[in-house]
């Protein structure tokens, strides 16, 4: 058995003139908990619907558990437990009736039905509502019924579309715990537009925007991508402090840019962006002392996933392509274990990025389906050269 649970190969889905998915490829290994991230309408749900065989891709294909969605869609569906967005259930049924129905649909008969129902009721903590009609249940409980029905045949792959949306914080915390627990024994894909969810529950993150894959990272890597470290330094504003501080900071080795943020009556604030990933706070402090500047505040700017997310998903398409290309080039280098040639790496990735951007620019002028600007290609270059 291959260690890949999902292989998505060049998935493209068109709805009329609209491209919901554009050449998306990715792999998911067994045992991973994959977060599928993106703004609403980015293509998360479309991808999940393709994997679960509800719809077929216009181009490309996917293999789940080694089975092709076109060749044996029943086989694929047997391997998947699926919870669609907004948890559609037969609300007029009781939880017990509903789970019985699902168990039968999943091929269980006789004593196995009650055995499996018992197991999932236990896993999803549904004992207290077992004999209630689903329409009488809270959103949190409905979601659990949704999870229970997805688990009834013990699938190796669980696909959950926005499992935490619409839940109150307590319910969401419980659900997150449940998902984390479930992820220990099986592969889980969950989609969300909530970054906190991903940070706490997922081992890997795919970000999708406008139907394209724009990032494929661990949450930690993603945070690293937030960019070069930045530091906020405030000095007492006395005499020529502002000018002196700017010069001093600018002269520091490892500083790429110094930007004055604001000047109030007492202080002047600067944003110092580093060139590498080093922490520049010690250097800034020493330089300030040496220059006789009074440092009244110094802190590392917190980067978080939200910035990365916004950065990745609001840019135009070429920029996005460039990033992926950059990432791929970087990965290659990483696996080669080549650390010294950092400059080569940059050059290579720049080249890749440029190529991707150019190709994209051509595409965008040929097809008019995406909202790309002609200026996008230039931006792509800027981005990768930075």
């Amino acid at each position, binding site marked *: 058995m291959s260690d890949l649970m999902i292989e998505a190969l060049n998935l493209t889905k068109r709805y009329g003139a609209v491209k919901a998915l554009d050449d998306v490829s990715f792999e998911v290994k067994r045992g991973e908990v994959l977060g599928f991230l993106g703004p609403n309408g980015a293509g998360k749900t479309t991808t999940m*619907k393709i994997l679960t*065989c509800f*719809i077929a891709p216009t181009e490309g294909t996917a293999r789940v558990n080694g089975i092709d969605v076109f060749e044996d869609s*029943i086989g694929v569906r047997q391997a998947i437990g699926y919870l669609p967005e907004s948890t*559609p*259930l*037969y609300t*007029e049924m009781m939880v017990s009736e509903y789970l019985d129905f699902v168990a*039968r649909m999943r091929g269980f008969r006789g004593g196995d039905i009650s055995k499996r129902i018992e197991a999932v009721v236990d896993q999803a903590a549904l004992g207290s509502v077992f004999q209630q009609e689903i329409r009488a249940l809270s959103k949190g409980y409905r979601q659990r019924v949704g999870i229970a029905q997805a688990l009834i045949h013990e699938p190796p792959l669980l696909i959950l579309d926005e499992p935490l949306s619409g839940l109150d914080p307590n319910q969401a915390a419980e659900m997150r715990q449940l998902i984390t627990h479930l992820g220990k024994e099986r592969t889980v894909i969950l989609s969300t537009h909530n970054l906190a969810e991903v940070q706490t529950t997922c081992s890997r993150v795919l970000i999708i925007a406008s139907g394209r894959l724009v990032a494929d990272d661990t949450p930690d890597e993603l945070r690293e991508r937030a960019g070069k470290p930045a530091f906020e330094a405030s000095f007492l504003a006395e005499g020529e402090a502002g000018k002196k501080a700017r010069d001093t900071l600018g002269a520091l080795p490892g500083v790429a840019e110094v930007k004055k943020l604001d000047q109030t009556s007492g202080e002047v604030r600067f944003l110092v962006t580093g060139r590498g990933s080093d922490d520049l706070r010690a250097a800034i402090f020493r330089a300030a002392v040496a220059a006789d500047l009074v440092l009244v505040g110094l802190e590392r700017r917190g980067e978080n996933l939200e910035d990365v997310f916004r950065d990745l998903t609001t840019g135009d398409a070429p920029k996005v392509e460039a990033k992926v290309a950059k990432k791929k080039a970087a990965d290659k280098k990483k696996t080669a274990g080549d650390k010294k040639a950092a400059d080569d790496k940059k050059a290579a990735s720049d080249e890749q990025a440029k190529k991707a951007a150019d190709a994209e620019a051509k595409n965008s002028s040929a097809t008019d389906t995406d909202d790309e600007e002609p200026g996008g290609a230039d931006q792509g270059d800027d981005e990768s050269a930075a």
Partner: protein
Amino acid sequence: MSNTTTIAGRQFRSYFNGAAAYIVISIVMLALGILFWKTFFLYGKSSVREMFRWLSLILVFATPAVSMGLLAEEKRTGTIELLITMPVKDSEVILGKYFGVLGLYLVTLLLTIPYPLSVSSLGHLDWGTVFSGYIGLFLWGAAMLATGLMASSFTENQLVAFFVGLAINFTLWLIGPMLQLLPTEFASIFQWLSFDFHFERMQRGVIAVRDVIYFLSITAIGLAVAFRSLESRRWS
């Protein structure tokens, strides 16, 4: 096949879990009671021909009312997605849904049996024609439920499904009475299409293959189109 039975069972029970089945059955019985008994004693004949006649018309309205939700409601609420992503063939979904509603129809038909029973207590009743009439009525209802399922597969809106189904059924029912008004050169085609033409013989006690084929063709076309329509979601 077992998937079909499971889906049919769930569908059938869902009618009785809610008010739908009771409302529809009550209205059918009420309408039939009024229409049938109102004229029964006027004719003074111990026959249930009039019952079949009225029931065939009542069903024109009642069948789309029970079939409109079959797929439309599942599409609107999204439950269709869970259903179809289970290891089940599209054809099993269609047949399961169809047999589910057919079950409800059978129950309704069975509930009308007290009518011929009462009539037979009033005078001699030819049970042969009653039997063939029921066969005809069953086939007629089965055909209309199939077109209703087809209509339901086109839309998420139950009301749209209802009116599409009703339009098809009513047209088939109305061709007979309107035959004189239709262009004579196509009369034989219209006649063959009309419900009356085929049901008439069955009411008289004749079960002819060509009449059975008429009802079964409508059923088959309805189910096949519904199947294609459900399948088309994958490619649209």
